[in-house]
């Protein structure tokens, strides 16, 4: 359900961006999505395909770069990439870590 709301947000932002005369028929829309976000790429692509939008966006494909979840160790300071649901420090194996990234949901850019 929220993929629809997110796609509305994407289209609203991009309708304004493509108004610039230098922007042609968009081929790719690049999104950055952190792994903590519960986004299903196929659903976003489907929603986007069927959503009314500027003519310059009609043939565009959504390309999602999935960003990893990273934690910072409060014992040794190491920044580790989280695999599966193991939030322990990769260096000292401490469980005293804090999530510092992985909740991104951004439009990175467009390519035409």
């Amino acid at each position: 359900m929220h993929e629809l709301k997110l796609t509305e947000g994407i289209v609203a932002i991009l309708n304004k961006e493509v108004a610039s005369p230098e922007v042609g028929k968009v081929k790719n829309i690049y999104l950055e999505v952190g792994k903590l976000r519960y986004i299903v790429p196929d659903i976003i692509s489907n929603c986007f395909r069927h959503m009314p939008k500027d003519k310059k966006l009609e043939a565009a494909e959504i390309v999602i770069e999935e960003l990893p979840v990273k934690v910072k160790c409060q014992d040794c300071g190491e920044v580790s990439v989280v695999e599966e649901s193991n939030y322990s420090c990769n260096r000292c194996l401490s469980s005293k870590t804090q999530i510092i990234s992985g909740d991104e949901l951004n439009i990175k850019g467009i390519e035409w």
Partner: protein
Amino acid sequence: MGYKVIKEKVLRANADTAKLIKERLDSAGTLMINIISSPGAGKTAFLEKIGPRLKEAGITLTILAGDCFTCRDAERLDKAGLEVIQINTGNACHIDASLIDKAISQVDIEKNDLIIVENVGNLVCPAEFELGEDMKIAFLNVAEGSDKAIKYPLLIKESPLALINKVDLTQMSDFDMAFCKECIRQVNRNIDIIEMSVKTGQGLDEALNWLVDKVKIKKEKAS
């Protein structure tokens, strides 16, 4: 051929509305808390019990009760003598900032110390949408199992408090409290955790004191 860097949050429109809401609440010194849980975790029952106690502690509060359909939660809270506004989201599985904006236009913010959003029962989507709140509370419960923190880490990451309700059911289930707390701390090392049973009253004093303290801190910041 060309490329344009955009670097824009997808939820920018929602974030902008949330920011305006927060600014209004900040200038009035009003604390807003967003309580998020799965359906049936006990949010409404919790508010029925804690709401009157917050009032007794001298706190003026309004509850924004979110549900897809019906006004059942708002009716219960109204019967408990609490100020409540029902938000019906229809097919939407979460409340967003525009709905909060509409709801708080009916609230005299200056007269309220605390606004509590009882979000739609859902551990997934509500965590993604800022409402202008000062903080989220992760409202877990024994009946849903011990591992929800690692299955729904975004909510845990965003919350300074996890309430674990229905501890009176622990003996009747496979729920492992130590494992549940370990999962929570794995995701958010600094979170406060309160074991609670709205039914028996266990943990309610602690939850009340936690909330009263946060209201006090917000008021002091504004003055």
